[in-house]
């Protein structure tokens, strides 16, 4: 069984919400890393 089959049952609204939350988390972590590197370089 394909373990990603649940994606077929997810509509655009929920997919957008779910995806944007994941994206927000990844972006936030990346930005914090960038800030930490900037502070270290300074």
């Amino acid at each position, binding site marked *: *069984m394909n*373990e990603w089959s*649940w994606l077929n*049952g997810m*509509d655009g*609204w929920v997919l957008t919400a779910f995806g944007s*939350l994941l994206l927000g988390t990844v972006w936030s*972590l990346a930005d*914090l890393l960038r800030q930490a590197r900037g502070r270290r370089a300074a």
Partner: protein
Amino acid sequence: MSLTTLLIWITYGAALLFLSRRVAAKDALSSGRVPVLIQALAYVATYLSAVALVGFAGLAHRYGLQMLLIAAGNAWFGVWFVYRYLAWPTKLLQRKLDAKTPAELIARGSGAPGLQPFLGLLSGGLLIVYGSAVFKGAALMMQGALPWSESAWLWTLVALVAISVVWGGFRGVLYTEALQGFIMFLGVTYLVAAVLRTLGGPLAGLSALAKLPPTPEANRGFLALSEGGAGLNLIFLMLVTSVGVWAQPQMIQRHFALVSRERTRSAIPLAMLAMGITVGGAYLAGALARLILGPEVTSPDHVVPMLVRQLLPEAGRQLFALAVVSASLSTASALLHIASACLGRDVLRRPLERGEWRVAVAVSAGLSGLFAAKSGAIIAWICATSWSLVACAALVPYLTVLALKGRAPAGAAWAASLTGLSSACLWHAVAYAPTSMKLTGLAAPGILSAIHPFLIGTTSSALAFGLVWVLVSHRAPATVGETN
């Protein structure tokens, strides 16, 4: 009740009081310099109450993952947009106008001094009543942790929060909220990890949730937005909690603690992370709880407590209880602080020096406690509507002050505020079925009865603002801007 449990709660209360005392600034309405991490966590802790962590997470058991729309809206509109576009301009204007409260900022910015007592009285009054519901919720939760009477817990918590607000002022409130925000983050993370471990990982959990048959509430399954009124309600709930939050005075006040544009930008990822994981995690756990608890749960409010009892060990249960009480008390301290400032400074025009500040907090806390003890239909109605009423009265005046820097006439701000408030009240009373059916027995026909008063209030507020601006500009162009 074990000795360890008692010690945990005593330490928690003592830590809040100690922190308030330790970081207090001289002025109860000023924060001084506050680190970015504290700023970000305090904003999220003020934003989220136990309604989100327990009530809305419990609703996810009934509605499924569509509740993530609210979480995403809160993270992107309620946090990212606010910090990206509203927070620093608010701080600059506050500094320029030397405003101590959001009502003072709006009134001075729009050249309408009378707006300060009006918005102060409205926000102060509504937030004291709203705070009573937050205190009552926290007392009920504490009753579950330590078996005292509800009334004893209510007044203990009111006293704890009042003392910490008196001692710490705005700066103390920010620090205690940050601590509570961090506890909330830990508690939810722990719960989500336990849920995912029980279900064999996120993919297995989502696959199982996708296979559940639709129900009347989740009428297109648990991974889709419902059709009809349920789906529409959810979108409105997202708008009220994500956009309505822009104009809540306790949230606007958080921007007053910012120190520079760069540091405001650095707060964004921290606040986004805290908000996304805390609220997104809570709703995800609530939705997946259906696979663990089954469909038969008497009330959505029981879902999270049942999940916690079933999955977490004793230490985890205590951590989550701390998280939920933190969610309530952080909101309560923000509400108590802003309500005291609104009533003392905006309405009575007092400078709120030390003695006056104590009296203002004591009166607000006492009223909040009394409302909580005497809860009735009117109080329940105010609690359910206060967020949208404050937003409808203040959102357009606030945004136009930021955007137009006082170039619009004072009458436009007055028109926006009064029209927004009255149209939202009217819609709540005679058209919006969830509230109007209980109040007057009337409702708008068909799908119109599901349109939230927030939409009606803010739209009519914006129209009133534009209309008065055009009329005044047309009739007496020279007077426009004279008040600035």
